[in-house]
C-alpha cells in the first residue's frame, strides 16, 4: 500500500520521515507500522495541519486527517501490516524473535521501501521501541546516510511522527474492522472491541471464541501472556521444539538436565519422551527413523 504512483518532484530534495506503530499492545489483530514523509522545506506547513498524537484524537478526526493527508500532494506515506499469525509464529519459533525485533525490522523495512522508491531521505524520526540510543545506533548502522532521531513519545513531539501515527492507527483500525476470519466455525462474531486485553468487549470476544483444542482463531496473538488466562481448561499440547529447548542444547543448566536423565532419574519429561515412537534399543537404522516394533495395539 502506498500513496505514490509516480514520484512528485519534491522527493528528490532532502526529505524528512516519521515512523510510528499502532496495535503493539492488543492481544488480537495486526500490528501496523506507518510512515509519513515530506520535503524538509514543507515541515513548517506540516506543523500547521494539526496532526496530534493519534491516541489523543477521536476516531472520526483521525479518519478525517488520514483522508486529508492522502489527498495532500506534498506528503507521502506507506504502511507495513504485520499479520497476527506472523507475530505469534515468530515469537513462538524455535529461535524466538521478540516483539522489539519484529518492530525494528518493520521500521527498517519502511525506510528501505521509501528509499528504494527514490525518495531522498535525510532525516528520520522514530518513536522508540526499547532503548532509544541502542535503537538509534542499529538504525544508523543500517542506513549510514540518514540522520535518525529516536525518542520516547516521538508521536507527540514531532508532527511528522504524529502524522505517521495517524497513518498507522487508521490502517490498524480498518484492518481489524475488515478482518476476514479464516476460521469457519459456527457462532463466530466480529465484536472484537479495540483488541486491548483490558477492553471488556475484547475479553468477551476471547471468551466466546476460545476452543479447547485449537485455542483461538488465528486473529489472536497466541504469544501474548493474556491468552494463558483463557487456556485454563484447554487441551494440553506439547511441542517437539519446546522439548529440545528444555533439554537444552544451550546453556549450562540444560547440560545438567541431560546428565541427570542419563543417570536414570525419571522426570515427567522423560516419561513423555518415552511415549514417543523412538526405536529405542533397536538397531541404528530403526532409531534414526523412529521406527518401533509394535506387536499389539
Amino acid at each position, binding site marked *: 500500500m502506498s500513496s505514490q504512483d509516480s514520484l512528485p518532484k519534491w522527493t528528490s530534495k532532502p526529505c524528512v520521515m516519521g515512523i510510528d506503530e499502532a496495535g503493539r499492545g492488543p492481544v488480537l489483530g495486526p500490528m501496523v507500522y506507518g510512515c509519513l514523509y515530506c520535503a524538509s522545506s514543507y515541515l513548517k506547513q506540516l506543523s500547521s495541519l494539526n496532526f496530534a498524537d493519534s491516541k489523543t484524537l477521536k476516531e472520526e478526526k483521525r479518519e478525517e486527517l488520514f483522508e486529508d493527508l492522502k489527498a495532500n500532494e506534498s506528503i507521502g506515506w506507506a504502511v507495513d501490516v504485520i499479520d497476527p499469525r506472523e507475530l505469534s509464529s515468530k515469537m513462538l519459533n524455535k529461535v524466538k524473535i521478540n516483539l522489539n525485533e519484529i518492530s525494528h525490522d518493520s521500521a527498517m523495512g519502511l525506510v528501505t521501501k521509501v528509499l528504494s522508491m527514490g525518495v531522498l531521505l535525510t532525516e528520520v524520526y522514530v518513536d522508540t521501541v526499547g532503548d532509544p540510543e541502542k535503537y538509534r545506533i542499529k538504525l544508523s548502522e543500517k542506513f549510514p546516510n540518514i540522520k535518525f532521531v529516536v525518542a520516547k513519545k516521538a508521536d507527540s513531539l514531532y508532527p511528522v511522527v504524529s502524522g505517521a501515527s495517524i497513518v498507522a492507527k487508521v490502517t490498524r483500525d480498518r484492518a481489524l474492522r475488515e478482518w476476514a476470519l479464516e476460521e469457519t466455525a459456527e457462532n463466530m462474531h466480529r465484536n472484537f472491541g479495540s483488541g486491548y486485553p483490558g477492553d471488556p468487549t475484547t475479553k468477551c470476544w476471547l471468551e466466546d471464541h476460545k476452543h479447547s483444542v485449537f485455542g483461538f482463531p488465528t486473529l489472536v496473538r497466541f504469544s501474548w501472556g493474556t491468552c494463558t488466562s483463557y487456556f485454563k481448561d484447554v487441551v494440553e499440547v506439547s511441542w517437539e521444539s519446546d522439548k529440545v529447548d528444555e533439554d537444552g542444547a544451550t546453556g549450562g543448566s540444560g547440560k545438567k538436565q541431560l546428565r541427570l536423565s542419563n543417570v536414570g532419574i525419571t522426570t515427567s519429561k522423560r516419561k513423555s519422551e518415552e*511415549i514417543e515412537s523412538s526405536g529405542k534399543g533397536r538397531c541404528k537404522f530403526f532409531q534414526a527413523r523412529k521406527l518401533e516394533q509394535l506387536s499389539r495395539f
Partner: protein
Amino acid sequence: MNDQNERKGEVIVDFDFDFGTDPKALDISGKVHQLPCTIKFDGPCPVSHYFKPKSTGIEVDGLNLEEAYFRGRKLQGATISLPEGYSGYVLGKKSKASEQCDDSSPWQVKAKFDNITYWNHDTLPSQDDTFQRTFHWLTVAQALHKPVTAEDLASASTALKNLS
C-alpha cells in the same frame, strides 16, 4: 485426533462422519495430518473449521510446500502419497454384535487413506525428515524377505570367491 495414542507426531484426522453409520472404507485421503506436537485429546474435533492448510506454490526438495497454523505456530508441511501397494487405515473396535458372528479380529476398518500430510514446526519439509525416511524400511524389508533366486545365489558365491 482419533484412536491415536498420545504420541509425539500426533495424527489428526478430520472426521465428519458418524462412526455408527456405514463405516465401510470411507476415503479420508487429504484429511490425515501428522503434527510435530502431542495433543492430549482423543475425540472428534472440527478440524476443517480451524486447521486451514494452504498450498504455497513453492517446491522444496521435490515437495509441494504447504503452510498452516496451529496454536499460534507456523507449520510447514507436505502431502506425500503412501508407497505403491500400501494404504493407510483407521481401525476401530468392532461393535459387540458384529464381533459375535465374525472371525478372530476385533478390529474393523473405519476409513482408509492413500496420502498423509506431515508438518514440521519451523523447518522446511525435506526428504531427510524422519517421517519420509521411515518408508526406507519398506525397501529394506523387501530386500530381506524376497525369495532368493538361483541367480542371486550364483552372484553371491562369485562375490565370495572374489573376496577370498
